[in-house]
């Protein structure tokens, strides 16, 4: 068994009186996997991914990357380790080209800092094709504003993927997307997994989580209350389990099948 890529042990985080996370044990396997993170509002999903991204420091607990303990985890360190967060609409500069967005902050430059535009456009085109982007109208020199919501998300995901993210974190990637577009996103994510990137994605839509995840992790009031492998259950059962959780009838430690 390969070492886990990411492991959070006994991580807790409070904001004032609010306990956002309580002694959470979370991990991402060594082989690329897709993990759906679901739970009600305030369950702690955002806090969890922000800790993984290095934005928040846990009050207690440890973070391990590839088995090695990480001290003073930060945004810079997380990026260096290959963790990329993709926020919904905020991720892209609308008026800029696809290529410029992909290479934002990491421009391909030659001497004296001049950008190798042609190379960037070519690389961006290649990347978008790899991830499954098949628009006949738009190429990498089109402005992002011309793309549909799903296509924009695709660009953001492609960016994370291109820079060899070991772990992509997607925060509500399919909210405000049509069914077809959501499917496109799932295809992007699956392609990214094939390319070696794991993915955590937060969603409220249990059916979406069920559709694309290898593993579903359910958070409730700061604790992980359930872990499910979609192979061993049905979407409807998952929904029922979520409702039970919402009504407070299920507590820590329930495990439906092996992960």
């Amino acid at each position, binding site marked *: 068994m390969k070492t886990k890529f990411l492991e959070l042990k006994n991580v807790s985080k409070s904001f004032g009186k609010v306990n956002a996370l309580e002694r959470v044990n979370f991990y991402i396997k060594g082989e690329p996997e897709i993990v759906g993170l679901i739970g009600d509002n305030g369950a702690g999903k955002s806090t969890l991914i922000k800790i993984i991204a290095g934005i928040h420091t846990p009050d207690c607990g440890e973070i391990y990357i590839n088995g090695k303990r990480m001290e003073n985890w930060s945004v810079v360190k997380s990026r260096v380790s290959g963790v990329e967060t993709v926020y919904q609409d905020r991720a892209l500069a609308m008026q800029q080209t696809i290529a410029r967005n992909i290479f934002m*902050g*990491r421009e391909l430059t030659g001497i004296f800092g001049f950008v190798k535009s042609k190379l960037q456009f070519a690389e961006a085109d290649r990347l978008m094709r790899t991830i499954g982007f098949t628009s006949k109208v738009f190429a990498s020199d089109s402005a992002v504003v011309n793309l549909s919501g799903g296509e924009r998300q695709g660009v953001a995901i492609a960016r994370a993927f291109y820079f060899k993210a070991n772990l992509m974190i997607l925060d509500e990637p399919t909210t405000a997307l049509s069914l077809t577009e959501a499917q496109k996103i799932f295809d992007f994510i699956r392609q990214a997994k094939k390319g070696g990137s794991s993915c955590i994605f937060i969603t409220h839509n249990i059916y979406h989580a069920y559709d694309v995840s290898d593993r579903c992790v359910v958070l409730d009031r700061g604790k992980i209350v359930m872990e499910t492998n979609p192979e061993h259950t049905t979407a409807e059962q998952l929904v029922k389990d979520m409702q039970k959780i919402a009504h407070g009838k299920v507590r820590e430690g329930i495990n439906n099948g092996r992960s």
Partner: protein
Amino acid sequence: MAGHRIHVITSISRFIEKNRRALIALLVLSVMMIIFLILNPQVFLNPLMYKAIFKTLSMFIILASAMVFVIASGEIDLSFGSIVGLAGWTLVLTLESGLSPYLGVLFALIAGAFVGFINGIIITRLGISSLVSTIGMSFLIRGLIYIGTKGAGTPVVYLVGTPFYNAFIGSIWGFPVNMLWALGFVVLSVLLFDHHKFGAQISCVGDNLESSQEMGINVATIKILAFVYVGIASAIVAVQSTLTNQIFYPGSGDGLLLIVLAAVFIGGTPSWGGIGTIMGSVIGACIIGVINSGIVAAGVSYLFKEFFYGLIIILALISHKLNGKRC
């Protein structure tokens, strides 16, 4: 054969797509020139007319090109007029100390860059809006100049005819050197804005600040550099202005503010950031320059000059609005 034709058409349409704003500005300029030519062909075909225009045009071009960087990054600078004054003052102070005029130019550039740097620091470190802080800086600098000079100007007529003078203001084969400086500055600006990492990052910062920060772009540094660039441009203009007028006066640079902003906006760089066109600003500056000198020649009272500035500005803005949506 047909394939080749299609390739050319796609290339042209791609070019138009990419440069729409500058092309619209060019259209406005062309229409305006045609109208002027019809109204008064003798004047507008006379090279002397353009000589007059070129005297001040280079200053508009240089400042408008530099302002694109600041505006595209999502900020604004209303203090560049006073920086022109400060840089000019630095130049004459150096001359009065008996030092070489070239050293004076160097000090002027440093002064301009320094004020730009301070502007950038105030906006990024203190987090004050650039609109207000550059208004304040403008007053501060202008006040300093008046205090220091006690309102008195410094003639530099003795510089006329010197190699130094000719290097900046002379003419080569009848073509004014200050326009060559402007051309050089435009080339530099285009390289920096369209082909360099600096310009790419400026556009990203002006387009989506948070995203740029998340992607590791040093937003503060980028913005500060943009203001420094405007400071340097102001210094160059100060040298040109002082030499052209053969005098430095404390109000030097006053009155450039709205004209240069107009040139930038006519040229198609929008005030909301993320987009910029150097060529558009150059064309906008030309429009302003031509109106400046052309109105009277076209038979209209010079009193109406500003009316036409306003009319052109609004018409150009409407054209740009019809062109593209704001996202």
